[in-house]
């Protein structure tokens, strides 16, 4: 990454961090209903990966997916408005926190049934291969997804059909509240399974945006050359709990402290400083992100609720919901 690219990546990560903090605060104040699964701490995976993709590549994410929608161009205002059930939300307030989607930018959805989207990503990659488009597809998923059948079916199919797809595990050590090591037969829940599907795998520092970017760029190049899928296990950590107001007390204090000291924003900032980017330039990006998110919160709060008629649109491709004559 050039210093400019890294600075842009850093800015995007700060924007995501600020948006996630806003989502948390808005949830605690009752303005966001239902649930949230915040990705603060995971920013480098989304931004590093996205920066290595073409604009027309496909991304599939999970219910912890705000960072992936934003890394593919969804704005903080679109995301927060969706979380706050506003008509201006990314999905017209019909999806919510767990289903952020930005299809115009190739971000084809966030799916809330664990593992379900891995076969979809394989299918999008199959489609790219059939059309000879040179596109690749990426499925981001948590460590918990490695124990569900769809993960294994997707990896096998992708390998057998040599599909241009990357499977990116965001291993944050906890499936939800239970340590992933307590429920998984192998130490590296994603990477250790790859050999069973004759698929190359890498375990990387998911909190270093440059490392993620370089790894993804290599995997995408392999995929575009027709050399098939890659599995990437990006080690990272949640700054919040699993969902809602979970304080994550099940995590040992020393573990939390160790990971908080390896914050992806700090890692990127240190890299920028080492490249000679002036601290004032970085601080300016921080201020701009804060202002953008503050404006997004205000705009979302002022946006209208969805019209009731919207409950009966878009069941079908004709825009309607008619099921009988």
């Amino acid at each position: 990454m050039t210093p400019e690219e890294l600075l842009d990546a850093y800015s995007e990560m700060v924007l995501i961090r600020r948006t996630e903090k806003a989502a948390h605060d808005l949830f605690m104040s009752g303005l966001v209903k239902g649930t949230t699964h915040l990705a603060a701490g995971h920013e480098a995976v989304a931004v590093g990966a996205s920066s290595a993709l073409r604009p027309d590549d496909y991304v599939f994410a999970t219910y912890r997916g705000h960072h992936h929608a934003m890394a593919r161009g969804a704005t903080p205002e679109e995301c927060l408005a969706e979380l706050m059930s506003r008509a201006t939300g990314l999905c017209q307030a019909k999806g919510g926190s767990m289903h952020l989607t930005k299809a115009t930018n190739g971000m084809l959805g966030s799916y809330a049934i664990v593992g379900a989207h891995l076969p979809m990503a394989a299918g999008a990659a199959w489609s790219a291969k059939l059309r000879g488009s040179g596109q690749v597809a990426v499925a981001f998923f948590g460590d918990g997804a490695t124990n569900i059948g769809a993960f294994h079916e997707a990896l096998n199919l992708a390998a057998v059909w040599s599909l241009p797809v990357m499977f990116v595990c965001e291993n944050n050590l906890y499936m939800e509240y239970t340590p992933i090591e307590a429920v998984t037969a192998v130490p590296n829940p994603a990477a250790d399974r790859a050999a069973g599907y004759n698929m190359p795998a890498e375990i990387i520092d998911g909190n270093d945006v440059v490392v993620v970017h370089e790894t993804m760029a290599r995997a995408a190049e392999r995929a575009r050359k027709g050399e098939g899928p890659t599995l990437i296990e990006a080690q990272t950590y949640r700054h919040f709990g699993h969902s809602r107001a979970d304080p994550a007390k099940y995590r040992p204090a020393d573990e939390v402290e160790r990971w908080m000291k390896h914050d992806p924003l700090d890692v990127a900032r240190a890299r920028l400083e080492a490249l000679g980017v002036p601290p004032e330039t970085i601080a300016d990006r921080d201020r701009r992100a804060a202002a953008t998110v503050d404006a997004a919160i205000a705009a979302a709060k002022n946006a209208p609720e969805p019209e009731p008629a919207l409950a009966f649109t878009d069941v079908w491709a004709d825009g309607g919901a008619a099921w009988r004559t």
Partner: protein
Amino acid sequence: MADVTKAEKFTYRDAVAEGIAREMRRDPSVVCLGEDIGAAEGVFKTTVGLFKEFGPGRVWDTPISEQAIVGAAMGAAMTGMRPVAEIMFSDFLACCWDYLANEIPKARYMTGGQVTVPLVVRTANGGGLGFGAQHSQAVENWAFTVPGLKIVAPSTPADVVGLMSAAIRSDDPVVFFEHKALLAGSGPRPPEGHLIELGQAAVAREGTDVTVVALASTVPLSLKAADQLAGEGISVEVIDLRCLIPLDMRTVLRSLERTSRLVVVEENPYQGGWGGTVVSVVADEGFELLDAPIKRVAGANVPLPFADSLEAEVIPTVDKVTEAIRRLSAY
């Protein structure tokens, strides 16, 4: 092409492959995937000729991975293809039910209309061949519980072709039930371009005394019953719904304006069967048309037994249908 000089036998089984082939010829984005559908031409021989004509680039053999099959079809459908996925036996839909219950029917709605999923999931459905409890079920009611899926279940070879074309051209996801007991049956080969709009029931036989609403295997069964009862002076109208979603209730209600008596014949279980919804609409909107209670001849609420004699006890038969019609007619 149809050759009128030769008495050609065009089976329901042939019609499946023919319907798919016609769409594959006109639209290069149509691709097939499933277990043993390629060189092996399908365990039910419903994909005969496709691999030979279109090759491995458009007819893809998969591992036994129902989630990967339907999930990959969904991903491909969202990105410019029109996949036709085969799930060998409809019982196996349970192995990939997440995709039919949670993913495919909801993707468009929950993204605020950002994506469409134009795919067809084809599957061999129903009993009558003695495959036992895990390979004989009629499960069209499973799909019927999920808003967002279109559901097709044809009863004749010509309808298979016309509805397959419509299903593949549909921008909405379609579950296409091919009835195992009908595969060997034959009928006229429809002309090129034959297309039947989804959601249009057919009046398979006109009558004035009792309306029988049927689907797939229960259509020929009901027609046989109607033939027998004609000799007794009972005039039976048989409606072939052809699709469950969209559900053509207009045709059902119009028929009841003439007959005022309704029998619904469905192979899926009485508990949760699609007939319950048909009947509830009639009760709500057609109550004053009726001169008699409504009868449902449905699968019994038991797993499918193996022996033919036992199976006949629990799925609709001609005798059960004639008996129901007679009782209604005498009411």
